[in-house]
């Protein structure tokens, strides 16, 4: 059963409070306050109070004035004024100044109150859904802004480079120079391609549904070994994989693969080219429904002051290697989808270790 809805009733007459609480306590969590300071302290300590009732006639402050005040300081709870039948002035006032949701006539019946709370609660829910949606929209909008900015740089950048190369090619006649330029052009094209692919990853992570199935880490790593062995051989990088999995593991396979792909491509990409012993090591252990994964490299490492930012969208901490600034951001989104965690341990010029934990579902 869900938690009871929290409501607050403010009235200077203790008898009214007792009566109110007695008839509603079964259905709701009722707070009662005899004066405004007490009411405010309840509101401060219980930000999830959804409905506030207040009597119009109180000695230190009218109900309308009270609502006018909390409308600014505590805008979320729905405000309902309780007032005597004849008091039309105060009702108009309450609507205009206190911006109340509705009023209940005195003397009230239990049915009146329950109906009012029911309506108020619906209004509250609609409002809070709206603000959640608003926040999501704002976030999406901010990301869209970043994308628009990045598209101009990360897509136009390589393209203008290639265009410039075509301009230059018209004036070049040395074949060796031409080959060197082709090599750099190829790098730019690959960068662009990788960018578009990770853009696709980004999109599928944001919009895709979970597809739970059994995951065999041996199988995943066999596939990846096939892909990265070539890179390892060409660049003289020792590549080792250790998998210990004896139990069934269930989760969405696509994000798991995405995480491995990004961490591994980084581990290979950010090797120290001058170093004699280069290695990448993957350790996976599945125990008690949790997969613990280490991806260790002996690469260039990440500067301490940058470690906090590497998971941010479009952040790049290195100017020598081409990065899109999307890879680790996607890793982080993938993990939040899988309910997993990631930790980084990096020493500059020595290497980086990522530790990932993913629960089985």
């Amino acid at each position: 059963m869900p938690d009871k809805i929290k409501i607050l009733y403010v009235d200077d007459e203790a008898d009214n409070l007792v009566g109110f609480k007695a008839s509603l306590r079964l259905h709701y969590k009722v707070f009662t306050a005899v004066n405004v300071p007490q009411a405010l302290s309840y509101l401060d300590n219980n930000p999830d109070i959804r409905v506030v009732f207040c009597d119009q006639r109180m000695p230190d402050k009218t109900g309308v004035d009270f609502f006018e005040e909390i409308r600014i300081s505590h805008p979320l709870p729905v405000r309902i004024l309780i007032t005597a039948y004849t008091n039309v002035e105060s009702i108009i006032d309450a609507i205009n100044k206190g911006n109340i949701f509705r009023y209940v006539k005195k003397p009230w019946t239990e049915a009146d109150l329950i109906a009012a709370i029911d309506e108020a609660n619906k209004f509250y829910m609609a409002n809070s859904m709206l603000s959640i949606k608003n926040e999501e929209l704002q976030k999406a909008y901010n990301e869209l802004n970043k994308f628009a900015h990045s598209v101009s740089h990360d897509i136009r950048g390589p393209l203008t480079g290639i265009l410039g190369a075509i301009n230059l090619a018209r004036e070049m006649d040395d074949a060796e120079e031409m080959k060197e330029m082709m090599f750099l052009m190829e790098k730019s094209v690959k960068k662009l391609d990788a960018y578009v692919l990770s853009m696709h990853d980004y999109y599928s992570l944001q919009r895709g549904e979970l597809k739970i199935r059994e995951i065999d880490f041996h199988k995943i790593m066999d596939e990846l070994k096939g892909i990265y062995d070539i890179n390892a051989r060409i660049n003289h990088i020792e590549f080792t994989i250790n998998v210990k999995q004896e139990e069934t593991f269930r989760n969405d396979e696509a994000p798991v693969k995405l995480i491995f792909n990004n961490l591994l491509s980084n581990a290979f990409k950010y090797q120290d080219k001058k170093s004699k012993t280069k290695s990448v090591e993957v350790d996976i252990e599945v125990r008690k429904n949790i997969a613990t994964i280490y991806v260790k490299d002996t690469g260039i490492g990440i500067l301490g002051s940058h470690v906090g930012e590497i998971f941010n969208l479009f952040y790049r901490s290195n100017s020598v290697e081409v990065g899109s600034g999307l890879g680790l951001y996607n890793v982080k989104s993938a993990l939040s989808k899988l309910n997993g965690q990631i930790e980084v341990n990096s020493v500059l010029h020595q290497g980086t270790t990522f530790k990932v934990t993913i629960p089985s579902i």
Partner: protein
Amino acid sequence: MNIGHSFIIIDDSELDSFLTRKFLELTYKDVTIESFQDARQALDTIRETPGGNSLTQTIILLDLQMPLMNGFQFVEEFEKLPAEVQKKYKVIVQTILTSKSDPNDISNILAYKTVNSVIQKPLSRGKLLSLSEQLRSDV
């Protein structure tokens, strides 16, 4: 025209910096070029060799959008160097940003007193020639 031109290229893109170098070599006969992928290294080098490399002014061809230290940050730091060091250099910005799509960025970078002008990427020989025309008339 060949009284020894000196350039510093600051661009994180290998291809772009290759292109700039080749275009410079095609345009000027006697030319010294240093290139940096990381603007911080360029700044350190300028700081350590305050006299510059040549008797003439060194032209810094600066990209704007770079990781770690972008073109704006570079100029910001460059203008903190002693005036006699700054005098040895002239900053020309090379960027894919356009005054149409990014008018603020373009006018912001031109607002720096050491930034002489902005060239739109991709570079071409024509653009370099009109730049050197302009630089000559500046003197």
